[in-house]
């Protein structure tokens, strides 16, 4: 036993950790100066917020999700991570919803620019799902992939410690299995946990992850543990609440830009922007300047924006995408088609948030299915 405890975790290894030891992991991260963010119950949902103790986790809780519907429910066991994703995503910590870029103070004929001085937070994310790792990888490409790197995102992203927890339940609106984004975690996390009834299997992803695990007594995972992990992931993949046929999806959407379904969904769409706010990859923001009454100080703030607002496409005197149809079509085709052209990936990771949190239950998998069923129909040609 002594030899096991002195073994040093290294990337690629899998360890078996007693559930209660997760507290030691939190403590180790706290000692290293990380603020641990993870799932906890607030306002009737499982949200992401600061965690102090293991008991902050929604132990023994799960969620029921359908289009436009979310409810918490007790589980019959005391699983730590027996739920699907909720209304929050990690986006809000890496790409803050409201961020003060700086202040300007009038200085004679010119002005003095005062950048923010607070150091960026050092977060450890606990409970990152496979779809969410994919979403973070997508945001990485958006904010850091080209010649213009976003400093706000980069400062947060480079400091973050990622602890993935692979899903052992699928939500009612989940379809990561269709998108190839889960439930198995892709590489990228420092640690990947899978919850078994009596323990976590911890896969070491990085040297940083190995270093944190080094102080926590645990044993190497057995073949049976690894098989149990695989079995759970297969079970989760089979239980997806939604499916999306992605065959030739960009081309399908591009050749159906005048499909009557867009008009039909526009009758239901509220253009409220909720889908874009909850989406873990929707990254759009607006930058606003506000001056004070005396005109001596100004603030520059950036805020999450949405392609569902008219101001979003306000150009040369008027908004380009005026109708709900134009805005919904833009959002869906960007997610599933033109994102490929722009960033080389899908913009959708199949997390199902836009389905659950649409106040009137618009389901993009249904919309795509309807278009596929009547591929080639042109608005105005039928009837």
């Amino acid at each position, binding site marked *: 036993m002594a030899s096991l405890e002195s073994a040093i975790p290294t990337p690629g290894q899998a360890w078996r950790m007693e559930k209660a030891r997760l507290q030691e992991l939190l403590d180790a991260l706290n000692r290293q100066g990380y603020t641990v963010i993870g799932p906890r119950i*607030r*306002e*009737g*949902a499982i*949200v992401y917020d600061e965690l102090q103790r293991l008991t902050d986790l929604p132990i023994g809780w799960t969620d029921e999700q359908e289009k*436009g*519907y*979310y*409810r918490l429910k007790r589980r019959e066991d005391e699983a730590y991570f027996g739920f699907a994703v*909720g*209304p*929050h995503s990690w986006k*809000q910590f890496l790409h803050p*919803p*409201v961020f003060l870029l700086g202040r300007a103070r009038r200085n004679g004929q010119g002005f003095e620019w005062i950048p923010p001085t607070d150091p960026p937070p050092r977060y450890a994310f606990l409970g990152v799902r496979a779809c969410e790792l994919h979403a973070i990888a997508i945001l990485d490409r958006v904010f850091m992939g080209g010649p213009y790197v976003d400093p706000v995102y980069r400062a947060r992203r480079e400091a973050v410690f990622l602890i993935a927890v692979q899903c052992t339940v699928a939500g009612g609106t989940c379809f990561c299995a269709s998108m190839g984004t889960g439930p198995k975690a892709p590489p990228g996390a420092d640690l990947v946990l899978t919850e078994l009834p009596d323990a976590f299997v911890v896969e070491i992803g990085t040297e940083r992850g190995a270093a944190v695990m080094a102080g926590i007594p645990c044993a190497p995972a057995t073949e049976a543990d690894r098989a149990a992990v695989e079995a759970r992931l297969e079970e989760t993949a089979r239980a997806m609440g939604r499916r999306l046929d992605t065959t030739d999806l960009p081309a399908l959407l591009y050749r159906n830009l005048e499909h009557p379904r867009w008009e039909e969904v526009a*009758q*239901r*769409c*509220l*253009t*409220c*922007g*909720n889908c874009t*706010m*909850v989406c873990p990859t929707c990254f759009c923001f607006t930058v*606003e*300047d*506000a*001056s*004070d*009454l*005396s*005109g001596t100080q100004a603030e520059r703030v950036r*805020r*999450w924006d*949405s392609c*569902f*607002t*008219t*101001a979003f496409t306000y150009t040369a005197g008027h908004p380009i995408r*005026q109708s*709900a149809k134009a805005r919904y079509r833009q959002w869906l085709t960007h997610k599933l088609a033109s994102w490929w052209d722009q960033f080389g990936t899908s913009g959708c990771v199949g997390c199902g948030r836009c389905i*659950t*949190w649409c*106040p*009137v*239950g618009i389901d993009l998998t249904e919309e795509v299915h309807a278009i596929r069923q009547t591929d080639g129909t042109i608005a105005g040609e039928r009837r």
Partner: protein
Amino acid sequence: MARRRKPKLAVWKFASCDGCQLTLLDCEDELLALAGEVEIAYFLEASRAVVRGPYDLSLVEGSISTPEQVEQIREIRRQSRFLVTIGACATAGGIQALRNFADVRGFLDLVYARPEYVRTLEKSLPASAYVPVDFELRGCPIGKGPLLELLSAFLNGRRPNIPNHSVCIECKRRGIVCVMVAQGTPCLGPVTHAGCGALCPAYRRGCYGCFGPMETPNPTSLGNWLLTHGMSSPDLVRLFRTFNTYAPAFKEAGERYAEAADVDRAR
């Protein structure tokens, strides 16, 4: 360079509760700064000292409800370089516009002992029904933040940065859990103009639409969703008929569900 003349600010009241102009007095930390930048020329709630017009900026509270008020608002328009209506009464007719759906003389006979003394218009309407309005500041009451933004924009000669998208965007930026999806609480947030910072949902209540319709509202879709999730037509009428009952999108929704309620009753 000579210091420019301080712009003259006037605050006017029509049929209203005074809550919106009170928002100006509530700007306690900024009030001195504001007094340094503008000449408060007419603001009876704060001072009976009155400076004659013309005015650079008129803030107009309240709906136009009587024949005299029609004349007054026209005169104020003539005297004002910029005219901004503030609050649900001035921008949509207010809660008192509920009377617009019935015969006002019926109310007069019911309420007043001598109705012949009362001179009133058939309808309670926003100022924009009678005069051109430069900007409408929404809310019941208006928010302090948007009011200060409006005044800063005016003083600095720029367009006010006051978004007219849904409350949901403000709600989600705050990380509030949706009361409709997670609790089944009817909420007008998706069809309502932002500006309050999602005040009610932050306290686990549904939005009741006090900022009026957002830029491209779809109350039919929201109403139909609520209808299929257990809300009755009369309740939907009450949902849409509050402080912004006569704002076009809410007015149409209220009328549609009122018709449906009548049909239900007739059955």
